[in-house]
């Protein structure tokens, strides 16, 4: 009986035997092969037997299904083919002997290494960039653009509204500040906002800011509509559509 091997960065993380039933792949936990990654759609693809040929079918996923590097809607599979979904790939092993009992199926893994080594990530990187490029496209469609913005509600600043475009936004009197505070006693760096992969984080400066009335103790993720108070300045953080 053929099997599918889910791999991440070259290491096998899951093996699934192929029976008569289609095997589904996606982010939702009820898939046969669940992949918990934002690049993967809830029900991303399915793999099934059709007249003794193995077929993979993309279920209109956002970032696509690839076979050996080519994006496909539906494709016949051969032994050794690699189905790439996000950063993961699924390798088809048709020669696999079904007689192997369940408990002796051991995880195929890289040998233990004492010395540091580097994976050849070229193929994976190309795949990822391809997927990322598609992702960027979809973000450009109107309605999905959300511009992080600071709206000044009170205090002396040089403008009334700021769009956060840089990785680091400084609030203060410093020459490096993009949200410029005025006034004799304004601190050089009152607070700072830092862009991470998953959103924007407010961090301490010379002052300890408050978010929605709560003093923060370390980098704090900002949500749409949060109120920031630092010194005499009050700001609202918004994702502008």
């Amino acid at each position, binding site marked *: 009986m053929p099997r599918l091997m889910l791999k991440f960065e070259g290491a096998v993380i899951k093996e699934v035997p192929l029976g008569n039933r289609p095997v589904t792949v996606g982010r939702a936990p009820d898939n046969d092969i669940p992949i918990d990654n934002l690049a993967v759609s809830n029900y991303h693809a399915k793999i099934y037997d059709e007249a003794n040929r193995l077929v993979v079918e993309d279920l209109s996923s956002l970032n696509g299904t690839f076979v050996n590097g080519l994006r496909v809607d539906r494709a016949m599979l051969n032994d050794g083919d690699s189905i790439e979904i996000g950063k993961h790939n699924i390798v088809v092993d048709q020669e696999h002997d079904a007689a192997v009992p369940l408990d002796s199926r051991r995880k195929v893994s890289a040998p233990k290494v004492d*010395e540091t080594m580097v994976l050849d990530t070229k193929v994976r990187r190309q795949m990822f960039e391809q997927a990322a490029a598609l992702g960027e496209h979809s973000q450009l469609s109107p309605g999905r653009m959300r511009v992080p913005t600071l709206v000044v509600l009170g205090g002396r600043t040089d403008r009334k509204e700021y769009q956060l475009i840089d990785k680091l936004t400084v609030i203060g009197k410093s020459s490096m500040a993009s949200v410029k505070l005025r006034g004799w006693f304004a601190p050089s760096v009152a607070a700072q906002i830092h862009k991470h992969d998953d959103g924007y984080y407010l961090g301490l400066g010379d002052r300890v800011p408050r978010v929605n009335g709560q003093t923060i103790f370390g980098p704090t993720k900002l949500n749409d509509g949060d109120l920031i108070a630092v010194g005499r300045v009050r700001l609202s953080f918004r994702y502008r559509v």
Partner: protein
Amino acid sequence: MHIESGARSDVGQIRKNNEDNFRAEPSFELFVLSDGMGGQASGEIASEIAVETVVDHCRAAVENGAPEFYGEPAAGLSDRTNRLASAVRLANKMIFEAAKDDPTRKGMGATIVTCWIEDRRLSLAHVGDSRAYLLRSGSFEQLTADHSLVADLVRSGVLTEQQAEVSEHQSILTRALGTQPSVQVDADEQMLVAGDVVLLCSDGLTRMVTNPEIAATLETNPNAQKAADRLIELANENGGEDNVTAIVVRVMAEPKGLLARVRRMWRGTP
């Protein structure tokens, strides 16, 4: 605001040679740490090329205006941070070329983590699993995301952090300097606050000493050199299985008062 720094590197308890290298340039507020890999002493060569190249490139950028820029400057980052990333890309190229022509150096590579301070802004760049941490008001935060297989598996939810710490795949990097003709560099920046402590370290520290132990050591040793020395001791006390290097940078408030103010005006700093 001024800084005080300390650094130390040690071979550890098990290995015969130290493949870590570092350069601390406090007057220039530039700090570089690299952990080399490869057989026949080539790891040491790779990490040495890495730290030398970064220091030379950054120095040249400040002293001679703008030497050649490597790679594309990223929008949203300051010139200073982009320059630091350029230095790391050049280090990659230098190691790759040094390895290419010499069969004994085949497969040599290195990690790098480096920080450069301008005014109050900390620029950071890294490749591999050497790390930067920030201790600020009692919170100890890792500023870099490892380029390693286990870190990717944790990010994708396959492994928990606890599983990652005991995984046999810990030594597998997904990015390093010198193994490909070009490399993707992670760069970042943030503003420093008086009292901050920045730590750069190789995996020989973080695999032997827990984060709370590291944070406590930084908090209880106000002298940066003593803090670095103590971290190395702790790694060795806990087994010292790998080379270990730590660079500690403390951000100090400027003294207040009229005399200090006059002195600062004299020096021309705000």
